[in-house]
């Protein structure tokens, strides 16, 4: 099954070209030009991995990550940013980002990280489903 990716960046040219390259690699890619647009898409669509820029206007990547973790905790987030300080990097990982890459990025490495993130998300979803089944079994006393 193709990985469903949401690519978030305020550089339109970057979004266009990166999404085309990821599509060539068999991924199902949607794009958002701002953190707010990304949150709105995540509320209505299902994605496996969000590739998120750190520095964006209005709402930055870290703020967006906090919201994403609240609404879709199983969603995997990879930061892809122009430059990151050690402090911001640590904060991103503490907030639950799966990985962090600097631009310009090696597409093969990014592709590998996306595939691993997809697997991780599937495991998390399976565990959530198992926990729900166990809860039902316990409550219904079957």
């Amino acid at each position: 099954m193709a990985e469903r990716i949401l690519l978030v960046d305020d550089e339109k040219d970057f979004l266009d070209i990166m999404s085309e390259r990821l599509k060539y690699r068999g991924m199902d890619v949607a794009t958002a030009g701002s953190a707010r647009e990304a949150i709105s898409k995540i509320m209505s669509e299902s994605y496996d991995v969000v590739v998120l820029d750190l520095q964006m206007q209005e709402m930055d990547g870290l703020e967006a990550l906090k919201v994403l973790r609240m609404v879709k905790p199983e969603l995997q987030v990879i930061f892809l940013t122009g430059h990151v300080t050690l402090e911001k990097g640590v904060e991103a990982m503490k907030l639950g980002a799966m990985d962090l890459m600097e631009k310009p990025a090696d597409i093969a490495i990014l592709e590998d990280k996306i595939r691993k993130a997809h697997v991780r998300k599937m495991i998390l979803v399976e565990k959530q489903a198992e926990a729900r089944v166990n809860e039902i079994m316990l409550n219904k006393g079957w």
Partner: protein
Amino acid sequence: MSEPESIETCGLRCFGAISASLSHELKNALAIINEHAGLLEDMMLMAGTGRPLDPDRLKLLAGNVMKQVQRADTMIKHMNQFAHSVDVTIACSDLEDALTLAIALNSRTAVMKGGTLVLEPSATPVRITTCPFWVQTLIWRSLNELLERAGADRQLHLCARKTSDGAAIIFSPVDHMLTNIHIPDVLNHLKATQALDIQTRELWIILPADITMNRTD
């Protein structure tokens, strides 16, 4: 209460913040160029498997690369111009040119804060003898404070204007609750003063025509 910032620290912070902002934007341009090169590589690989190359698509990609090179080149020119502002302590220059450079250097920061900077052309050239680097520091520091307080008025206009005994940098519209900009050391260094017009919501930074006149330091 925290210690007031020294003029040296303020200058260094200005240099650091502007360099960081421009280098970040440069990396964005490089990232786009990198992905275009990567896409061309992908297309070549696909051409090797029999998928034909589309000349129109290639032309578009080349145009995009040129656009990003132009963007990066402009940024480097501004960065270079700013770096050379410390070459001379005092110089005679056009204040509108200083504002044009300041807008180029601070636009990204303004956008990050949800604002935009607009230059209002002055009717006549506004030449003054002053410290180019400290004028940039003054504008950077003022913009940071004004954009933080911009509220709904996210478009900030900058204008250079001749006064009877010098020149003024005018920022508008500023927050109606604003009383002053907290940069006493930089203002003192430039022998500048600030005045607020609540009616027009303009902040005036008034600079002398020649900073070397009656200079005590």
